[in-house]
């Protein structure tokens, strides 16, 4: 198969980096994971037969987890996790409501990991539930229900933030 990686990159780079940041909050680390995944795709296109998109996301996840493992070996990671403590910007600034954007980013970090990754794949990766299932090795029904739970939970987290604001 003649695989046009540049076209895939143009279509998915933003969402892939966002997905990688689930495990690697730093933008540069996430970019490295995306780079690793693309190198893999370029060198082993047969692994990405037919629909390469789910496997590309899967490769990004593996690359991100691989990097976490490597850094754990080198140094016990600076601290437990930056995800719960540091504000992280995932999205372009919003002229209309910067506060709302930050509230969503904060709530996203609090979502259970399995729900958050399905949400990212569905909303920003624009993957179908079948593709999400392929990427994560779960059934289509599980993918769909995690998405529903994620939306519900995210709504609750946003409500809670509004109450405390």
């Amino acid at each position, binding site marked *: 198969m003649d695989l046009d990686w540049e076209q895939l990159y143009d279509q998915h780079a933003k969402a892939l980096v966002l997905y990688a940041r689930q495990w690697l909050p730093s933008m540069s680390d996430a970019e490295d994971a995306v780079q690793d995944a693309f*190198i893999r795709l370029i060198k082993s296109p047969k692994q990405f037969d037919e629909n390469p998109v789910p496997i590309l996301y899967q490769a990004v996840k*593996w690359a991100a987890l691989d990097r976490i493992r490597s850094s754990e070996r080198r140094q016990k990671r600076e601290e437990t996790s930056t995800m719960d403590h540091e504000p992280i910007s995932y999205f372009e600034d919003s002229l209309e409501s910067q506060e709302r954007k930050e509230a969503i980013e904060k709530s996203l970090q609090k979502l259970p990991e399995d729900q958050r990754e399905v949400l990212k794949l569905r*909303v920003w990766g624009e993957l179908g*539930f079948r593709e999400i299932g392929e990427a994560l090795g779960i059934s289509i029904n599980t993918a769909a229900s995690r998405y529903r739970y994620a939306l519900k939970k995210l709504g609750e987290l946003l409500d809670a933030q509004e109450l405390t604001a």
Partner: protein
Amino acid sequence: MNADTPPLDPLNEREAALELELRSMAPLAPSSSLKDRIRQAAAELDSAPASLPVEPERKNVVEVPFWRKPGFAAVAAAVVIGIFATSFFFSPDSSEPVAVSLVGDPEDELIIWGNPPKVDPSPFALRNQVLVSQQNDGIVEDEHGRPMWKIRIQVLDRSPSAKSAVPVEQVVYVPVRHD
């Protein structure tokens, strides 16, 4: 119904609004150099085979790159010989995976299965290594005349102690199963 969507209750108004709001948010773009970095890394990998070590003619061993840690060759050879012995005596089913340690570390394994065999590219199995290519060169005979699959693989070492930024070719011999 869309085959991609399982039968679910439709999103309620609130969920639908939140979904729309999320979709309207654009993730941060990666740095403009990322695409060039990928292109450059791919080009470096393309040019790598010219500098690969020459494959020796020895059989029934795992050829290891010179930069691997000391003692690895003995461990890897022992593992391959062990696999050979297991296959010879038990004739396992072709779907049963065979593990070959490449660095003498139980955590760093290639899983090889099938007849003809294939290397599992899973980075969970490869840990600090990335399998960039694999090529089955068919069946050769070992020094005792027994048939062995000859698999040529390229592995990129990403461990902290890696001494090469390009993939290194290794040859793995796996006994042909008597299914």
